[in-house]
């Protein structure tokens, strides 16, 4: 068996000895007494560990072909089936309805339906309206799994190993959050491309619009994954976690403007949708990508989302300090 060079490994105890002889008291460590680790050119920055943990998650997610395939196919299915099935435009057009005896000309009906759609959805086709909602749809589902993965890590003992290393507790949580932000970004980008291919209206598409939309999605994903990670911090049971997620994600989506405009909702639901951060993410997307009139100003949308993201990620970090160790 080959051995490590002897002085290399004995290094640490010797250095440690020096320190305990010099200072002894741990308070002295900050004051420049000999440090065990300095020989290792330590990078004590929080970002170092954060990056390592984030990169681990991202690499894991994209190294398995089946998972990559699922990543791409899922938005296609959502958009292709869900988006195309809700073909609300055809409810009104093409002589699908008429009033007996009046014989309204088709032209008039088409005009009527187009105006109806425009006033209801802020765009002349429901597919484009829904496509933007879908961006947040995949976002929510991707972020949801950030919580799951922390439960898995706990179950497999990996979390405990992390807790035994000097990596910041906050970095453990934020590593999950950031990796799921990146994953949901990739998902959202795929959704957008597919939506355009499937016939989303591109008349208002611009680089600035896309960048602005993704900025809003970034804030939304940051807040949502923090929320899901937070819920999973103490959980050891993935079934319980699944139940919590399922309880949350669909109401979160339905009580927003992702699938249906808020203004047509019953007033109590409108109130819920108005505090739901997803509505603001979608609102930014509709204004910037489709040129629809928003239900709030862009400035307010971004402020609200930024507040949501900062608040939830901060709470997530604080909770990680308190809850990760028993």
């Amino acid at each position, binding site marked *: *068996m080959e051995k490590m060079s002897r002085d290399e490994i004995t290094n640490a105890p010797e250095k*440690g000895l020096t320190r305990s002889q010099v200072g002894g008291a741990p308070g002295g460590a900050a004051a420049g007494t000999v440090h065990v680790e300095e020989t290792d050119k330590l990078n004590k920055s929080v970002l170092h560990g954060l990056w390592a943990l984030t990169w*681990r998650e991202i*690499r894991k997610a994209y190294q398995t072909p089946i998972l990559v395939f699922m990543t791409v196919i899922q938005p296609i299915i959502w958009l292709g089936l869900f988006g195309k099935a809700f073909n609300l435009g055809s409810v009104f057009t093409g002589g699908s309805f008429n009033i007996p005896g009046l014989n309204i000309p088709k032209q008039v009906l088409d005009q009527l339906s187009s105006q109806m759609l425009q006033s209801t959805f802020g765009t002349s086709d429901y597919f484009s309206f829904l496509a933007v909602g879908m961006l947040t749809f995949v976002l929510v589902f991707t972020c949801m799994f950030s919580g799951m993965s922390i439960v898995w890590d706990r179950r497999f003992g990996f979390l405990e*190993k992390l*807790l035994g290393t000097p990596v910041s507790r906050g970095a453990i949580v934020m590593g999950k959050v950031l990796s799921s932000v990146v994953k949901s970004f990739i998902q959202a980008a795929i959704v957008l491309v597919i939506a355009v291919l499937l016939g989303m209206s591109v008349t208002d598409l611009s680089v600035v619009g896309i960048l602005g939309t993704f900025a809003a999605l970034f804030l939304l994903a940051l807040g949502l994954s923090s929320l899901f990670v937070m819920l999973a911090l103490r959980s050891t049971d993935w079934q319980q976690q699944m139940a919590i997620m399922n309880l949350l994600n669909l109401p979160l989506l339905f009580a927003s403007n992702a699938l249906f405009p808020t203004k047509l909702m019953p007033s109590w639901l409108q109130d819920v949708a108005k505090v739901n951060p997803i509505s603001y993410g979608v609102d930014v997307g509709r204004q910037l990508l489709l040129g629809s009139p928003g239900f709030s100003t862009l400035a307010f949308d971004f402020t609200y989302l930024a507040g949501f993201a900062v608040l939830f990620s901060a709470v997530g970090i604080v909770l990680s300090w308190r809850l990760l160790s028993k």
Partner: protein
Amino acid sequence: MLETQAVEKLRAAPAVLTVEHLTKVFEGRTKAVDDISFTLREGEILGLLGPNGAGKSTTIKMLTTVLKPTSGKAEIGGYDILKHPTEVRRIVGVVPQEYTADEDMTGRGNIVLCADLYGISRSVSVPRAAELLKLVELEASGDRKVSTYSGGMRRRLELACGLINRPRLLFLDEPTLGLDVQTRAAVWEYIKTLKNEYGMTLLMTTHYLEEAGALCDTIAIIDRGKIVKIGSPDELKESLGGDIIEIAVKEDADVEGIISNVPLVKSVKKLEGYYRIKAELGEEATPAVIEALRSKGYHVTRISLTKPSMDEVYLEYTGRTLRDAEADSEEVRKQRFTMMRARR
């Protein structure tokens, strides 16, 4: 004696770990760890030996700052585990009972990830990962995914991960749990290498008696959260009241008196056809007993000398009753999971 010298040298070494009145009470349950105190010196291997649920793992978890103690204190390398947890984490290495490596990554990837978590830059960690893979004889499979590893390989990988920061104190929690005989022997070899070649300080838990006897300088027998006995393996054995000599003589006469007059003999009991003698230093007492009997004209027909084994020490201090300890369901599941994967 050489051994005593080594022990004395060890006792003079500076303390790496001091534990004072450490206690952990889990909510609504009995004390998992109940007021334990001990010192671990540089270069020493301390074994926490005890039945399941005795509080061994809980102690390690507290010392590695994963669990917060209810009361008491501990210092590692001069750092208080409660006040300076980050510093403590930097100077200790942990090889947990479970297999904690990320299955979707390679062995090498896991070690480098560990290094990243300690803030060790890649220029240092990459060559060191190669060294460690060599040490645990995994260099050939270092670039395979951990999910393809056998239990023994996983255990060795855990060991390598635990050494990545060149710890001053390495914690090994049940290092050979569920391993086959070959891998267990290999793990023992690594531990001996770490001690003899690198002078590493180790704290390990085990419930295998032979393991504690073979590897540890000091053994702390822990039961129901308390240290019931601490000392070197020899001291523990001696504490049982010495070696046992069994002797039979040809003649029918009662020789109990003659035997009990031999200086090293502590007690004699006449049993059916033979005498059972408890004596200090059995090797010296045995010839002395034979000599004494001979000088009185008796003939020794059969003689045996038994040194007390760790088993006897262990049973003496922890009792023979089976433990139906109140187990944490998560602990049990984790352990089962570990065993399951170890046997693959």
